[in-house]
């Protein structure tokens, strides 16, 4: 399992959904997750090439809600960190 400290790495450009600040948008590039989980997320709209906007989060910052394909989906940080941005 990837740890949450990915967030703390000094990076110029957001690399995963986890790096998006509230209201920021990114374009999804790929899903680094097991096939079954990827498929479920793709059915919900997390398709490579789709724009994803970070919306609100639960108090404490995790899980976070993402706006994708007209819906709002909540993901934990550990999952969001595996959805890589372009």
């Amino acid at each position: 399992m990837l740890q949450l400290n990915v967030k703390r790495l000094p990076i110029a450009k957001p690399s995963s959904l986890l790096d998006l600040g509230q209201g920021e948008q990114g374009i999804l590039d790929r899903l680094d997750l097991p096939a079954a989980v990827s498929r479920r997320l793709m059915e919900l709209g997390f398709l490579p090439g789709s724009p994803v906007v970070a919306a609100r989060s639960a108090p404490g910052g995790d899980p976070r809600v993402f706006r994708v394909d007209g819906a709002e989906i909540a993901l934990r940080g550990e999952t969001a960190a595996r959805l890589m941005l372009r």
Partner: protein
Amino acid sequence: MSGCQGCNSGAVAAHPEAHAVAIVGPPNSGKSTLFNRLTGLRQKVANYPGVTVEQRLGRARLEKGREVTLIDLPGIYSLAPRSEDEQVAHDILSGAMRDFPRPDAVLLILDSTNLSRQLMLAAPILALGLPSMVVLNMADELRSRGGEVDVEALSRQLGAPVALISAMRGEGLEPVYRFLGERGAAPGPVELPVLDDVPRCREWAARIGQRAAYQAPAPRLWTRRLDAVFLHPVWGPLIFGAVVVAVFQSIFSWARPLMEGVQSLVTRSGAWAGSLLPDSVLRSLLIEGVWSGVGSVLVFLPQILLLFLFIGILEDSGYLARAALIADRTMARVGLQGKSFIPLLSAYACAVPAILATRTIENKRDRIATILIAPLMTCSARLPVYTLVIAAFLPERPLVGPLLGTRAAAMLGLYLLGFLAAFGTARLLKSSVLKSERAPFVLEMPPYRRPAWRSLGLRLLDRSKVFLWRAGTVILGVAVALWILAHLPLRDGKAPPIEQSFAGSLGRAIEPVIQPLGFNWKIGVGLVTSLAAREVIVGTLGAIYGMDPDARSLGLQRALRKDLTPGGAVALLVFFAFAMQCMSTVAVVRRETGGWKWPLIQFAYMGALAYSGAFLANHLVG
């Protein structure tokens, strides 16, 4: 929240010769609202044989007195059979479900406010080749937020009839009724994408939407504004706590006048019926056995309905998903996830639907852990016991102005006790036998909506039926059996004093075991009968004390005060908080976990917890 399906389980097969139509759609598309709208009171809830998925069948009335059977399938995102819900939907639609005929037609219901995504489900449904109608729901919301769609163009694109409706307002249903009435043709030949390829399916859906001139409505501003409050870092958790407290306080203070009304109705009708009957064994059985037993449980109907009403409002308004989001971090701390929150909240009403609701948890170990702890949450069957004991031993005084009284606070304390026991157990399980990697938590946030009162009303009616059915069967049966045990063996053709009856001997036999808990043999009889269902103890004690001439005038509360020390009273509360006294729950756990192993472990664990907890309480409180 689904009700006590396990209580009246058994498959309801549709008549093979009748016209049957399945309603399919993604979660939150208004599927159940449409089903309720079309069937009204003519519906039945059961379980598919062998699986945990709820089966909802209903009849829609058409013109000229004709009827059609409707099957409300579980909400699904695709037909790929991965979860149990999808498996059931897949099996029924393809005719592979055992003992269940394939439906003749399909109503595919989609949320018109997010059509291009929802159309993805149309591909696998149309590929089935069954006559299908695509129903676009929430037409009112689509229009009010400036969206539009060309229904006829969409119908041409899909090769199937399309209707734009509002299930909540009952608008635009004429074409749906027409479709139900006719044996429609299979969908026309249209080009469908490769179903396994999600990106292709999505492109196909977008293209179809475009060709049907679909204009997505403006974003839901109200949902965003409300989320800014409900998911606020400070206000969010405060509101969450306030909602929980408000629900508990109101089911105790608001329900009281209603409960007193039912109580006086039961007492007066019992006295009236008693005055009509001659003094005989029959009168004693009817009034003391049957009526006082069933009546003492009937009193709790208003309270249980209020609880279901609140959970229903929270669920339908969309707040429950936010609550799951807020709860996820806490749940993660004991190794569970936010999705366990919804089953566990349902467990406050009844463990049976809660255990059925755990099927939304994909991770098997998380699911078993949730099943094992669900019966520790304070279900409504405990309320009659808690209310009785608290009212008998704790005088009502305001604590925080009019907001919180001593009795509501005690009740909250008991809820907290169950909650802590459940979470301690979860932690124990998830760090030992059910250890697993954290499963991904994926939860769609539905928009905030006004609850549909019609659907809520139907659900409450369904709950009342289940509750009254239980009162009329299990509780009635136990009441009659107890009355017989309490009146035998006959002495000189007369019933013996209660302590010399069979029931009394039974109570006395277990008295040495329960004496350390501060319970006498009368409570012992109640503990034995409440193994069937917790609330039965109230009726049992009512019957035992009702028959005891010394206690007859005292009323149940005063009788209890005479027989129990404060320590014994607290011990009784603790015992009921922990023990697994519910045959329906044992049965449903066995079915859900596929064997006797888990229900037996659960029964023994909860029994040991109850005994040691009650023992401690009796000795600490004194």
